[in-house]
């Protein structure tokens, strides 16, 4: 698994599985930049079902509103940050 550093460009995986995931649909497929590493956390996709969980590095990723909403953005230069687990990120 790639380890990302602050400033690294990343893309949120455009996955659409059913079940409990903590990656909001509006961010899937969007490109952003790692703001900080948050450390390892249990994978919610296993914790949700009472399973022993792998740990996943968790990152704060910063996006522009223009990247998320395109022409529909209210103010394109405004930004948004969200926590995304490593397995939902790929290098951009």
């Amino acid at each position, binding site marked *: 698994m790639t380890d990302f550093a602050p400033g690294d460009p990343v893309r949120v995986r455009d996955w659409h599985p059913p079940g409990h995931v*903590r*990656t*909001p649909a*509006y961010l899937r497929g969007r490109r952003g930049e790692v703001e900080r590493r*948050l450390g390892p*956390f249990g994978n*919610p996709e296993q914790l949700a079902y009472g399973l022993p969980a792998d740990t996943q590095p*968790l990152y*704060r990723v910063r996006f522009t509103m223009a990247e*998320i*909403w395109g022409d*529909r953005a*209210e*103010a394109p*230069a*405004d*930004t*948004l*940050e*969200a*926590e*995304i*687990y490593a397995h939902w990120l790929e290098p951009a």
Partner: protein
Amino acid sequence: MPHDHHAPPRPDNDEPLTYWQSMEIAVRELLIEKGVTDATEIAQAIDAMDARSPADGAKVVARAWSDPAFKASLLKDASAACHGMGFDIGPMHLIAVENRPGLHNVVVCTLCSCYPRYLIGPPPDWYKSRAYRSRTVREPRKVLAEFGVTLPEATEIRVHDSTADMRYIVLPERPAGTDDLTEEALAALVTRDSMIGTGLPRQPE
């Protein structure tokens, strides 16, 4: 401060019992019968949550406004900084995000209703509403305007979606004209909404 008032207590004890209330009573009694918990522990948990309020967060903000070293530690590790002030914030991982000229932060949880409840108490109803959860990430300026907060176009708005394990508190900008105020007087200017980002601190009189 239109959003800081408390509505009157909702009647509960003398209203007709609902299905879900009967489930709460049953679950509680079963947990006690099974030895998972006891009445004292439940009462203590209620007291502990009742004791948490925006006033605790206001003290943290006022300390950060008054003490640059504390502010640096708060921005580096907000959980440790709150523990250091003696607040029991339970299992919460807290991040403080700082407003400054040209940058305004606002916090939301689009997937559920994550909130820094172990510092400032449970979230207000509107924070958990479909309207707030849906719209804040898409049109934060319109949402803020509904709270009476209108920011210059040149000010960047940064929305924080609490998607996973961290919780967020906004460190608002210290109001002008407060150089002479004590930490206690500063804390009185800090509203709940100013720590969520849907409000600004009160102005000194």
